[in-house]
């Protein structure tokens, strides 16, 4: 539908804009002793013309201006349309004059249709103006739409980022860490400060590394070690870490924060359930075309199960699947008090985007 017709307020303003044109015609062409006749003749015709002018919109849509469709290509169409509108004006004026005369109320508008060529030119020229205005209208609403789209897509991207962040950072971890800081503030201020800084570094890493980015295993392990350092403040001597990646493996690339949920699981569902704690072991090696990473931890098979346990593993699996298809795999097993998660993915030595 025509955008002006779709909105009653806009339509009102559009029609109001035609009123001065009608008044100019009344004053310019009317006679001093017959203003009434001129007004009765020109004002309704101007309003009718306003509606005819709206049809320029469809003409503009049919001949859009763009880089591969220059405006001169539309000129013949616009000229013939203007000629038709001019002729229409003459016809409408002739008809309206006949109607007014037949009413027998003393109006004599015949004088205005004595110069049909003038009516024709006025109608045609005004139509060109309407066409020009409609091109402006279409262009401005298109730019508004694209601006809105850009804004919306920006918001969506931001939301996706925040969702990914929420999935990465376990609220339980965050609030427990804050509680440790709160406790240390009274008893051991230097440790409280140290923990604040560790937490800040870790959060910065997580914010910086978008969900689509790939980083080297070396970088990923440094993020993971920051996380583990925080958990070591919280869990004390219960948490020990053994992290070693062979040299070629450390240079391999993987989706950022892929290992983070695995290490978090090792702490949350493994070490945190053991009274005496244990060691989280992280190892990585390159095997031919594949990068193999292994995270293991002692576990209590009789631990109380937490609701939604296993969500982290599911997310890692989905991510591997979407980035590498069948070449990205996560295998987990739990036996004899040990939980092992093994990731294998294609070894790549530089940052390669997955889908480009």
């Amino acid at each position: 539908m025509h955008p002006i017709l779709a909105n009653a307020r806009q339509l009102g303003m559009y029609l109001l804009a035609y009123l001065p044109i009608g008044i100019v015609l009344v004053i310019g062409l009317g006679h001093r002793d017959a203003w009434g006749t001129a007004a009765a003749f020109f004002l309704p015709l101007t309003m009718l013309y306003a509606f005819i002018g709206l049809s320029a919109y469809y003409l503009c849509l049919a001949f859009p201006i763009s880089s591969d469709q220059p405006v001169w290509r539309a000129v013949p169409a616009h000229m013939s349309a203007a000629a038709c509108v001019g002729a229409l004006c003459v016809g409408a004026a002739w008809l309206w004059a006949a109607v007014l005369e037949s009413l027998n109320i003393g109006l004599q508008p015949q004088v205005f249709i004595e110069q049909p060529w003038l009516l024709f030119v006025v109608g045609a020229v005004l139509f060109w103006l309407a066409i020009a205005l409609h091109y402006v209208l279409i262009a401005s609403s298109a730019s508004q739409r694209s601006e809105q789209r850009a804004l919306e897509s920006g918001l969506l991207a931001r939301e996706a980022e925040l969702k990914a962040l929420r999935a990465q950072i376990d609220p339980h971890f965050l609030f427990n860490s804050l509680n440790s800081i709160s406790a240390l503030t009274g008893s051991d201020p230097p440790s409280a400060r140290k923990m604040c800084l560790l937490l800040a570094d870790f959060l910065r890493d997580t914010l910086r590394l978008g969900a689509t980015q790939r980083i080297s295993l070396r970088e990923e392990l440094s993020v993971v070690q920051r996380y583990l350092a925080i958990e070591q403040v919280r869990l004390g001597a219960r948490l020990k870490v053994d992290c070693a990646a062979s040299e070629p493996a450390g240079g391999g690339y993987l989706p950022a924060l892929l290992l983070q949920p695995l290490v978090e699981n090792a702490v949350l569902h493994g070490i945190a359930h053991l009274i005496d704690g244990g060691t989280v072991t992280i190892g990585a090696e390159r095997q031919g075309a594949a990068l193999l990473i292994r995270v293991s931890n002692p576990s209590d098979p009789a631990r109380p199960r937490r609701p939604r346990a296993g969500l982290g593993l599911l997310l890692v699996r989905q991510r591997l699947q979407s980035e590498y298809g069948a070449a990205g795999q996560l295998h987990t097993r739990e036996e004899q008090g040990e939980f092992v998660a093994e990731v294998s993915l294609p070894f790549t030595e530089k940052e390669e985007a997955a889908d480009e």
Partner: protein
Amino acid sequence: MNEITQLKAIIVDDEAHARALIREYLMQHSDIQVVAECANGFEAVKAASELKPDLLFLDIQMPKLDGFEVLDLIGRDAASVIFTTAYDEYALRAFDVHAVDYLLKPFGAERFDEALELARVRIRKRDALPIRELLDTHREGAAIDRVLIRNRSNVHVIPVEQIDYVEAQDDYVSIRAAGRSYLKEQTLGELEAQLAGKGFLRIHRRYVLNVSRLAKIELSEKDSRIAILNDKTELPISRSGYTKLRGLL
């Protein structure tokens, strides 16, 4: 009562810092005496049953037993409980449903004092926690995967797949698992509901059987039937129990 009543408190949290913080906040309250600190669920049950505290500060996520399981086992051994947790949607929903107060970590001294005052009032009014309702809401009808049994101050954890059968004995159930019997204060109907979907069947008014332990069914005299288990134990089968069993096999 004009004199200040001393209240015995136990702090249960697996993190030393978190316990220290509660101790620090409690220094402002001379009427509270900390009689024990526990770092896991087993210690908490043992301390609560031996010391019968007035007040228990109870963390939800801990080794061995979580806070809800501790509550289940100690029952009314602690007069009042203040739960502490960093984040646990399921626990918080259960608390909210039953209007149970809790402390969200990290909490400040003001909020702590407020929770403590509420607890004092509950203790004075002997206003007990709605333990069963709280546990049911938290479990949300999900089947359990282990049965917890308290024997004075010791806790036995029995994975449900180790249970052969359960027998009703007045207000108790006798759970037969791995060659031993354990008594638990619970009705058979309640335990049967908790074991739903875990391969158990009520074969008799007084028996719930782990169906995988069934060796054969024999007809005894007077058209009544007996279940013979893998270890040769014989259990009676009621008529409706037999219908259900036949439908399953």
